[in-house]
């Protein structure tokens, strides 16, 4: 019986990095794509310049955001599966 579960540890580090840093990074790529295009931020306007107006950019952005949402949904499903073990050992 070991005091530390290395298999759990590496999973927490690897999946932690993938979900905790990877997904925000994909979200950031979505923001980057979204901001591409001809529209330029106008000083003093209400527009923050987040939406650049490029159709391709917006499509890529939508894809990125979908990937993030899907990954979160899958992750929650997995946690549910693991978190409801059969009672008794």
């Amino acid at each position, binding site marked *: 019986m070991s005091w530390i*579960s290395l298999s*759990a540890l590496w*999973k927490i580090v690897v999946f932690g990095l993938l*979900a*905790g840093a990877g997904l925000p*990074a994909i979200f950031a790529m979505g*923001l980057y794509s979204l901001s591409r295009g001809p529209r330029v931020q106008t000083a003093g306007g209400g527009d*923050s310049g987040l939406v650049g107006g490029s159709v391709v950019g917006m499509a890529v952005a939508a894809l990125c955001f979908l990937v993030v949402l899907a990954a979160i949904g899958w992750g929650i499903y997995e*946690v549910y599966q693991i978190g*409801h073990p059969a009672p008794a050992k």
Partner: protein
Amino acid sequence: MSNTFVLVLVVITALGFDFTNGFHDTGNAMATSIATKALSPRVAVGLSGILNLVGAFLSLAVAATIASGLVDTKLVTLTVVAAGLAGGITWNLVTWLFGIPSSSSHALIGGVIGSTIAAAGGHAILWHGLVSKVVLPAVLSPIIAGLVAATGTWLLYRISRSLTEAARGHGFRIGQIGSACMVSLAHGTNDAQKTMGVITLALIVNKTVPAHSNAPFWVILSCALAISIGTYLGGWRVIRTLGKGLVEIESPQGMAAESASAAVILLSSSFGYSLSTTHVATGSIIGSGLGKKGAEVRWNVAGRMATAWVFTLPSAALVGAGAYALAHVIGGTTGVIIDLLILVAVAAFIYLRSRASKVDHNNVNDEWTGSAAPAEPEPEPAAA
């Protein structure tokens, strides 16, 4: 008969603890989103409450750890559980009053461990479970969260470097709503579980349910409701303090920190590791500082966190042991009632003290220097 009475007392006390846990930790998840006006305060606490409720149902692994993995259920009595709860909560409230950061999770576990040792001796503790599922995760989780948050922060700034300041702020504020929601969900999977575990332990001890049982449905539901109502009523004081203190954190850092916390807590929960959500959140915030060039990291906060962590388990254990000794000397149901009356008196005193002194300036600084999470998740007196 008297056993049922004591059992009811234990359940009520545990649910009270759960309520304060939610109450105090709302800020962990939502303070940044409220501060940046990404969400209105009412929407934020409502959302956080609902997600805590969902999270409480999502994974039962941590409840199983607390109920059957830490103490030998054959050697524990209801009085032990009651004394442990009283000890843990008392320690928690007193440290909160004096502004000493301490983890409510560790106080709860420490209290139960202490009263168990006082009642049955060290062999009643499943040391392996305690070290591998509580102590080691407590040490490792903030470090892993910090690593993840630093990586995330670096990536976010790198990827978004061509965006204008306004666009970046706008985009990541939206992202923060998502990551804050995930923190609330993760909070439910870990913190609500601790109370479920303690109630299940009481039920096992009382032979209401067999050993190694999972938490019965009514326990899951009542704990989920207690933490989510606590969250909804919201520690406005904590939220305001956190929001003020967090202005130095930009939205990409906030998002990276919250995502790291949510991921680490959710993963740990699913392995049955009980950890302090606040320690994880603090680790993430420090990581988000390390990941951004020129950002300041508050190492004194990290130092305080570490110190508090070292002391909380043993201190709460001592208070739990004392509470058991008192209940044991008086004996029977009366002993338990006296313990819980003292607890109520301490809570009332602290409530009055906190009303009288409000939040003084030292306190304000103490609380926000921690993180997107308060420096610690000590429960606030319910009505404060």
